[in-house]
């Protein structure tokens, strides 16, 4: 049974067809990257999966269960977790308290302190535990949020541009972190622009373009695909032009 499945997913904002009949399947244990030029509908698809938007039509299955109508927090409780593009942390609270808020209902109170220490060490934030989260460096904020997302012990981890604004070294370290989490059994879906990161972690890549699934395959297949190269260079293929004309 797939971990996550979207079936004929559509989302319209007024006349704008942002998500167009998307069928996406994530097998358990895979790292799946979602790429595509700006405006391809990646963020919308992400928000549909999270439940921040409700689809105009179509269904979303999570571990075989239909979660199409569920609220975000209900999806999180079923084993999803998310890291946002702009670090979604509690800036005025200490790093430690950020993690405590994430973890307090997932561990018995007696074991909570130790678990937080362990996660702080994993995130390289032990020395910063009493600092206010808002005073961390950008990369540290990203890691703190990944830590909060991971601490829920999710089956499926959703990452929205996890390496945005990171240095190449930080990007690489983040990639290694994702691989380690995946090795522990976490399925990962990441929206990402950084092709080095995608190459580092992805088992499978889906290219979105104009709201539709444009291509799918391994990173090598995608890189070799001339149509994909064309849309990234801002050209549309003959097929695309015909499609747009039909919709106009």
């Amino acid at each position, binding site marked *: 049974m797939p971990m996550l499945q979207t079936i004929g997913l559509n989302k319209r904002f007024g006349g704008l067809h942002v998500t167009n009949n998307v069928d996406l399947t994530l097998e358990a244990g895979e790292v799946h990257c979602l790429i595509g030029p700006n405006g391809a509908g990646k963020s919308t698809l992400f928000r549909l999966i*999270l439940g921040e938007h409700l689809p105009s039509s179509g269904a979303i299955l999570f571990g075989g269960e239909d979660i199409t109508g569920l*609220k*975000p*927090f209900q999806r*999180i*409780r079923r084993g999803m*977790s*998310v890291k*946002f593009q702009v670090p*979604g*942390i*509690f*800036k*005025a*609270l*200490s790093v430690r*308290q950020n993690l*405590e*808020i*994430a973890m*307090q*209902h997932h561990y018995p*109170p*007696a074991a909570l302190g130790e678990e937080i220490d362990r996660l702080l060490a994993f995130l390289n934030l032990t020395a*910063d535990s*009493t*600092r*206010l989260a808002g*005073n961390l460096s950008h990369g540290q904020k990203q890691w703190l*949020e990944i830590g*909060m997302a991971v601490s*829920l012990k999710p089956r499926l981890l959703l990452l929205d541009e996890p390496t945005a604004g990171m240095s190449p070294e930080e990007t690489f370290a983040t990639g290694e972190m994702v691989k380690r989490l995946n090795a522990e059994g976490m399925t990962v879906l990441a929206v990402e622009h950084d092709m080095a990161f995608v190459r580092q972690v992805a088992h499978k890549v889906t290219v979105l373009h104009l709201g539709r699934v444009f291509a799918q395959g391994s990173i090598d297949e995608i890189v070799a695909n001339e149509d994909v190269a064309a849309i990234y260079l801002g050209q549309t293929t003959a097929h695309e032009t015909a499609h747009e004309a039909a919709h106009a």
Partner: protein
Amino acid sequence: MNALSRFFSRLEGPQTLGRGPGFWIGFLVVLAGACAYPLFSDGYTVGNTVYFFTWIFMALGLCLIWGYGGALSFGQTAFFGIAGYSYGILTINFGAAYGFTFVALLIAIGIAALFAALLGYFLFFGRISGVFLGIVTLSVTLVLERFMAQTAGPEWKIGAARLNGFNGMSNMPPLTVPWPGGDIVLFPDVQLYYVVLGLLVLVYLGLRILVNSPFGNVLVAIRENPERAEMLGYDIRKYQLGTFVIGAALAGLSGVLYTSWGQYITPSSMGMTAAALPIVWVAVGGRSDLTTTLVGTLTVLAVFQALTIHGSQYALVVMGIMLVLTVLLAPRGLIYALARLIARPFTKRQPGDA
């Protein structure tokens, strides 16, 4: 660490200023002073102090809703009024015998809390937040005031209790403790002082435990970043509603104590001015902390009364200026800023501490 000691360890934590033996010794000294105070004062002044104390519950409730939960509510005085009127209607009809006034106190607070639950359900489950929450709660408060203001006619009565429009409802019995040798009527004097002081200590310590608990953690998380809080699996609407109801119940407690204190309540206790004042107390003190809210409320009330007594008609204008100065100079509160200043030499600064 067993559950009980964990419970009491939450008297201090990241969400409250003041920790360690120094703070608690100071707390006990202040408490001892407050206990001894009636010995050195006369009944009238003590009764006046009780009047100050009655408002603090409402302020602490607002501190919880606004300072910790991040939801600015102008509704506190509505719940204050509902509970005050409920207490009046109940006790005028059923009297004060057999300790009924305390039953009426609980029922009145319950009615205010129920009303808050109903209103809060539509607000929070309808995802109303920010400035709109303030507008809706203020509107509800003013509608209640308008409604009560037009109840002057004799047809507006519930049992023996005339609502009396702007003249106000009066002559309800004060809180009365049943006692073998004859009931103790708690007029604004030393006995009422100790009862209210006891309640105050209980509520203050109880709220400290609440805000440092996992519930309090989620509350500040919602204030800081509601989307992230929801994406950690919390149904934030339930937390917001719970907080709103607790805050309303505390406003209700204030309403009952006030009504019982003066044996009088009027619609103006829910008017525009009344609705704005708690905001001033809490903002000037420092809304993000219970202790600064408590100290701030007492200070502002004392200043306000001093100004009014000495013939200044500009007490409200001074309140307004205090609010503006706070917002401009010490957005986290004047007392809060002062507390940080005093505490600075005694605490090691953490790297990156604000």
